[in-house]
């Protein structure tokens, strides 16, 4: 592969990152070729010793995206990272659905926790609700009124513990993902 072909391919694969960054990468590689040539190597030899244009472009892109996500975190950036990492290998293709599944699972756990809190609070205020709007509260006969708010407190307490556990769990999986991305960005 000639220098010209290498740089043309590199430009194509780099498309999508800011123009200045593309120019910088291209001039780095041009300089590399120039130095290699002046030390007596052929363009072809230099090109084959470098990563392929595709590999180089993707590792630059991954690096670029990871750096911009660490400064400004947003959903769009996360998506950009995911898509650029996807192109790094088939492995990511398998991991992406798993990532989404885990994210949805975590979300559903949080919704459940929210419902449980709500239940606890409703149970707690049940006696008051019964006074204001008797039609909305039905209680089995024989259960003393005082028991219901206590159960409510119990539910909230248990939910709180579950909530803390879930926080830890989701933080762990987030950190794991971040580590995984960083690992990939340090391309061989």
């Amino acid at each position, binding site marked *: 592969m000639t220098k010209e072909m290498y740089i043309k391919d590199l430009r194509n694969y780099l498309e999508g990152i800011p123009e200045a960054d593309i120019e910088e*990468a291209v001039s*780095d590689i*041009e*300089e590399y070729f*120039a130095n290699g040539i002046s030390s007596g190597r052929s363009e072809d030899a230099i090109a084959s010793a470098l990563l392929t244009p595709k590999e180089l472009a993707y590792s*630059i892109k991954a*690096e670029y995206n990871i750096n911009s996500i660490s400064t400004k975190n947003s959903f769009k950036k996360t998506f950009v990272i995911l898509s650029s990492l996807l192109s790094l290998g088939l492995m990511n293709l398998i991991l992406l659905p798993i990532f989404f599944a885990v994210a949805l699972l975590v979300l559903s756990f949080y919704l459940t926790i929210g419902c449980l809190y709500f239940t606890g609070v409703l149970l707690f205020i049940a006696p008051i609700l019964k006074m204001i709007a008797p039609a909305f509260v039905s209680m089995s006969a024989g259960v003393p009124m005082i028991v219901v708010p206590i159960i409510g407190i119990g539910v909230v307490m248990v939910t709180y513990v579950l909530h803390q556990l879930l926080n830890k769990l989701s933080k762990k999986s987030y950190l794991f993902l971040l580590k995984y991305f960083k690992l990939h960005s340090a*391309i061989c």
Partner: protein
Amino acid sequence: MNIQFKKGILELCVLSILSRKNCYGYELVNEILEFMEISEGTIYPLLRRLKMDNLVTTYLQESNEGPPRKYYQLTELGKETHSELILEWKLFQASINKICLPEESK
């Protein structure tokens, strides 16, 4: 050598070479190639990351042959990071030696 391991070590090597003298990309690669087999392109993504993390800065300098060269220079933060990594490396190396080469590390 294990690829993941080499990736991490490469950063330490680059910082170490730059702590001795400022280098341009091609020079840096050759310094490393003398002792370790790497794919030559690996260095650029790494250098970009070091630059974005403010561990190195760059400047252009004319050369006798060909276009001006982009030299890489450690920043203060880069120097600090380098010393920290060296310390970590020593500890790491010592522990691995104790596990893998118990006779030699006595």
